[in-house]
Each structure stands twice: as structure tokens, then as C-alpha cells.
């Protein structure tokens, strides 16, 4: 399973990458904002997207919308991992089609749970 982790802070990308490796997902690629991530997603055969919200260039919400608007990517599981914690933002992300939303700071257990849940739901839908 190929993951793309999008966050403008390299420390956070490393943290997520390491946690994913611990969870058994060794194939992890990084991008520092939506603008960089979108062409990677379009050409990279990714299976799962984990993105921050607040990033310069293209924020995570715009990336999510772009993914949902792209016929080839529209079904991609997207987990938002962000410090943005306002109710209306979470609602907005949900309306844009996010599959999961984790608030920073987060725990390894939370990340695992959300990923498992998303993959489970996808397996059931297939």
C-alpha cells in the first residue's frame, strides 16, 4: 500500500512516516504542500493520502477538493491530520469528502485506528 504524506513541516512528515512504517506500511512518499502533492498523486499510483490542512501554496482542503474533482483520484482515501480544530472546518472537510480527520497533537493509536477504519470501510464498499 502506497502512502503520500503531505505536510509543510518536515518534522511532522518524518513522524507520520515513522509511525506508518511501525504500522507495517513501508511505502511512504512525502510532499510539502498541495501544489507539489497533486501532480505526484496524478502520476504516482498512490493508495492513501494523509494531508495537513494549513500549508502555504495549496492548503489541504483545496488538495482534497482537487482529488475529489479528479476522475482518476476521486475514490482515494484521504485522512486529514491537522491542528485546525474548528467545528466548521471539520464540517467543511467532511463536506469536501474527507475520510478521516485527526487533530494534532495525536497519538499513534489514533492514527492506526483511523487508517484501519478507512481501509475497512473501503474493503466493505468494494
Amino acid at each position, binding site marked *: 500500500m502506497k502512502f503520500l504524506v503531505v*505536510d509543510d*513541516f518536515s*518534522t*511532522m512528515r*518524518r*513522524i507520520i512516516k*515513522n*509511525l506508518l512504517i*511501525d504500522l507495517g506500511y513501508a511505502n511512504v512518499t512525502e510532499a510539502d504542500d498541495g501544489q507539489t502533492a497533486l501532480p505526484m498523486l496524478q502520476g504516482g499510483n498512490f493508495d492513501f493520502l494523509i494531508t495537513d490542512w*494549513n500549508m502555504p501554496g495549496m492548503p489541504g482542503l483545496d488538495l482534497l477538493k482537487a482529488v475529489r474533482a479528479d476522475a482518476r483520484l476521486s475514490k482515494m482515501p484521504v485522512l486529514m491530520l491537522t*491542528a485546525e480544530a474548528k467545528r466548521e472546518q471539520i464540517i467543511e472537510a467532511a463536506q469536501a469528502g474527507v475520510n478521516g480527520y485527526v487533530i*494534532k*497533537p*495525536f*497519538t*499513534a493509536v489514533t492514527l492506526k485506528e483511523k487508517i484501519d477504519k478507512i481501509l475497512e470501510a473501503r474493503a466493505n464498499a468494494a
Partner: protein
Amino acid sequence: MTSVTALQEEYGPTIAALAGALAAGDEGLFLSELDGLVERRERGLFGELRKLTSDLQSALVRFSIDSRLVDLAEKEVPDARLRLDHVLKLTDEAAHRTMDLVEQSGPLAERTAKQAEEITTLWQRYRSRSIAVDEFRDMVRRMDVFLESAGKDMGTVRGNLAEVLLTQGYQDLSGQIIRGVMKLVGELETALVELVRLSKSGSKGNKGAAVSEVRGSGFGPAIPGLDRGPAVSDQDDVDALLSGLGM
């Protein structure tokens, strides 16, 4: 008397010319002198009006800067202070959590290494067939203890390492907060510079006068891109600097 004299000097010749032109029946001269008179009055009036308009305009600009400054000073600066306080708290918590986990893990790793070492000595005797029966029993007993505790301890250490990793998330969170404060400082700087420019209109301010100001509490960590004079970049630099000074 002087103002009357000034009026006489300014308008006397024109009025005389007007009266003369009227008496002589010179319509063209009369009208051109009259136009000149009116224009002279208007010029003064427009000058006053222009000055009034520009005063009003700068008062309005100053008012808008003032109210932005008031907003910044009353609300956003205290907010920024709180935000920076939070950064302090985040970094403090993360540093302590990391050190707690390291302190917790150290003895576990040490115990495992020590037990392994003890067994290794017995194991080598066993391999060279020079172990006594009692020693062999002791080795097996130690082996049982070691396998169980090493598995458990290393599991704990592994969990602690994962948590150390996760704890570094403070960098992202505090970085975001600091970015916000930096934006505010930029805005504050713009408003202040504009205010200084308005209040000093004409005279040039002395730029960067406070850069080399020495503060009793120190400057805090060196910040890349912010020139506060020569700074060291890591511990090697500190050591090199101290040894250069003969320490």
C-alpha cells in the same frame, strides 16, 4: 494701518487702472484688469483650500493607522504574548516528556545488556565444554529470566521510542504559532513605520539605531536570517571558540 497699506499697495494700481479705463471708455482694458483682479483673489483662496484638503487627508490616514495600531496594541499584541506563552509551554512539555522517556528507557536497555553479558560468560564455558552441572542449571535459569525480561523491556523501550518520535510534533504546532506571531510583528512594523513617517513628514528617521542594543536578559537563541552580530551554530563551534580562547 499696515494692512490697509498692504491692500493699497496690492490693489491700488489695479483699481486706478480700472478707474482710468472706465473714464477713458476703454472696455477691453477695463475687462482685462478686472479679470486679473479676480484671478489674484482666487489663487489665494485655492491655495488655502488645497492646504486644508491635504491636512484633512493626512488626518484621515493617521486616524486609520491609529485605529489599526490601537487594535494591534489592545488585542493582537496580548494575544501574541499568550500564543508565545503557549509555544513555551509546548516546548517545555515536549522536552520533559522526551527526557522522561529516555530516562525510563535507559535502565531497561542497561539491564538487558548486563543480563546478556552474564549469560555470555556461562554460554562460552558451555560451548567450550568446561561448564559444571550446577553452572549449567544456573545458565538455563538465567536464560529463562533473560528471555522473558528482555522481550518485555525491549517492548517498553520500543514503545517509548515511538512516543519520543510523536512528541516531536511540538515543532509543527509551535512553528505554526510562531509564523502567526511573525505575521503580526510584520503588520505592527508597517503600521509603526507609517506612523513615524507621517509624524516626521520631511525629516528622515534614523534607521536601525536599536540593532546593537544590549539587553540584560540576553538575546535568546540565535535565529538564522536575523542578524544580531556573529553567532555560533552548534556545540562544535562553541568548543572551537572556547579552545581558541585557551579553554
